[in-house]
């Protein structure tokens, strides 16, 4: 038993991350899968985005899949990481490391404050409130009252202030390793947190919040913990995002950005670590590569009515998502679950509109 735990807890993840780490050394190309050789900056940039979104999806899964908090405002904390770090470096000319510490601290405080307010409501109302807070952030970044974010233009990072290893196209491999390292850190933190004793309470809240309360614990406090940890990790991911794209754009503040994280987690499997990571990687890859499918010769030959939807990656991903919700509620990770309730099925109790709305006898 001990050996099995050692294997699955440490050796498997380390082997996976180790295998991914050699990508920049592979100079051959895989036709159809990538346009360019794997070690080329273009492919590495895509791969870096894939693993980064794998990590971001995992931070979202921490509150959604493991604690049962359906937030539509996770993008806010990623955006804090993306924008605040960049503003501190580029607009305020701060030292890089000071800026990062400041950003993390600010995200932590903000997550505590907004989490406290929005956790006053539960279930679907919580989703709406988090969405509203994220929208406030989006408006702030767009209107740019202090000329910090540069609104729709976006804010390019002052590269002289960044560590040299992360600047320039030749250093894409370093950015890839950074994203991968971030994924590994998030993976181990999430696992440690979920298996710690508060983590057990989070999952208990997901299964049955009332019972947790009856046991004499305060669910609010534990939910806030999960929310703050998830949001702070998301802000750290935002900093990596800022480095990877060497700047900040409004794309990360859009309400749809949180929704794409939700899509990733559900496609991969809610409440599953590998599922969320896989979902994030797969979604990002498809979102990029389906554009190529749309312009391929097979699709070009199709009649107009069929071609239009196929040229829109988000249409296809949205459709795949709906099919998964219908037919595979455990996501990709749920395939291996052998009949145990997984993914969305486990969230039934946690995210319901109101206890009085769905009396248990209706389940029959």
């Amino acid at each position, binding site marked *: 038993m001990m050996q099995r735990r050692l294997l699955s807890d440490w050796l498997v993840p380390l082997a996976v991350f180790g295998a991914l780490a050699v990508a920049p050394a592979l100079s051959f190309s895989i036709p159809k899968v990538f346009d360019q050789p794997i070690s080329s900056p273009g492919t590495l940039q895509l791969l870096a985005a894939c693993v980064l979104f794998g990590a971001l999806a995992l931070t979202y899964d921490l509150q959604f899949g493991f604690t049962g908090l359906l937030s539509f405002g996770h993008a806010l904390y990623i955006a804090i990481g993306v924008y605040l770090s960049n503003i501190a470096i580029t607009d305020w000319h701060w030292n890089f490391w000071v800026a990062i510490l400041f950003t993390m601290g600010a995200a932590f405080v903000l997550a505590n404050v907004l989490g406290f*307010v929005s956790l006053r*409501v539960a279930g679907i109302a919580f989703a709406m409130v988090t969405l509203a807070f994220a929208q406030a952030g989006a408006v702030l970044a767009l*209107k740019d009252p202090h000329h910090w974010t540069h609104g729709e233009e976006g804010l390019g990072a002052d590269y002289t202030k960044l560590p040299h290893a992360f600047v320039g196209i030749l250093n894409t491999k370093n950015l890839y390793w950074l994203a991968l390292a971030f994924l590994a850190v998030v993976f181990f933190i999430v696992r440690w947190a979920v298996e710690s004793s508060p983590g057990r309470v989070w999952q208990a809240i997901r299964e049955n919040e009332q019972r947790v309360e009856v046991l004499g614990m305060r669910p609010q406090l534990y939910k806030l913990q999960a929310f703050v940890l998830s949001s702070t990790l998301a802000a750290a991911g935002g900093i990596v995002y800022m480095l990877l794209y060497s700047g900040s754009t409004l794309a990360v503040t859009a309400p749809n950005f949180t929704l794409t994280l939700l899509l990733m987690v559900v496609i991969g499997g809610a409440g599953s670590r590998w599922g969320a990571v896989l979902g994030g990687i797969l979604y990002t890859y498809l979102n990029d590569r389906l554009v190529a499918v749309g312009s391929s010769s097979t699709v070009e030959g199709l009649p107009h009515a069929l071609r*239009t939807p196929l040229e829109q990656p988000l249409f296809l991903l*949205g*459709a795949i*998502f709906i099919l998964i919700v219908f037919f595979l509620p455990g996501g990709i990770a749920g395939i291996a679950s052998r009949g145990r309730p997984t993914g969305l099925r486990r969230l*039934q109790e946690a995210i319901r509109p109101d206890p*009085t709305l769905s009396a248990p006898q209706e389940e029959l």
Partner: protein
Amino acid sequence: MSTWLLLTITGLGLGAMYFLIASGLSLIYGLMGVLNFAHGAFITVGAYSTWWTEAHLFSGVHSTVLRFLLAALMGLVVGGVFAALVELILIRPLYNRHIEQVLVTVGLSIAFVALVQGIWGTDAKAFVVPPWLHDTTTVAGAHIPNDRWVEIATAAVVLGLLQLFLRRTRYGLIIRAGVENRAMVQALGIDVRKAFTLVFAVGGIAAAVAGVLSGVYFNVVGPDDGTSLLIFAFIVVVIGGLGSIGGSAVAAVVVGLTQQYTNYYASSGVGDMVVVLLLGLVLLARPRGLAGAVIGARA
């Protein structure tokens, strides 16, 4: 004084749109517990159907007013049918699985915006309306665009019709009872599911009206308009109290006016922030919203 009046009427016009969206959201949520993200798609369906039929189907009609009215009517019909189909095909099979129902509407909203962008492009389309709507009427020294009156009047009529429907018809009674206690209505042998399709259709029509009015208000329709209006409608629904039409109406007016006043007297964008702040305050003071209805908060 005249600026204040203009702001007030404009705020009420904006609130009118919020109310039209929020009323459907609130009914659907109250009855079925579904946070309908696809409501933005209903708005877009209404707006685009009106825009398209105005140019293609009714291009032979000479009177601009008649042409606009016919096209708008078409928009409402398509919006209502689309919403009913969404309920029948996507929501009904997931009966009583709330989280999955919400997620399906999320997927639909994303896929739908992408589809509209694929067919008609990402650019906003000019919305043709009778020229009279762009004239102004002078009231107490304020030059008020006529479309504001139309928006307020339409919302008032819809509010009246909804109240009549909910209070005076048998289906209205079932819906009100269902919002109160669905299990009890079912126990009395009434098939609530018919009412589900109905509230979706009603909500879809109201959202389509909002879509047409947003075209009138902004002069253009774009693929993303539905989503951005939807967010403020969510805020209105939460502030007003989920499941309450009256609460939505009051909250829509409060939100619309607050947004207009602060956007003008402070600076552009502040209004949106203040509205979110208002939401936070309402949640801290009254987690169940102004109307204090059941849902969402733990007792």
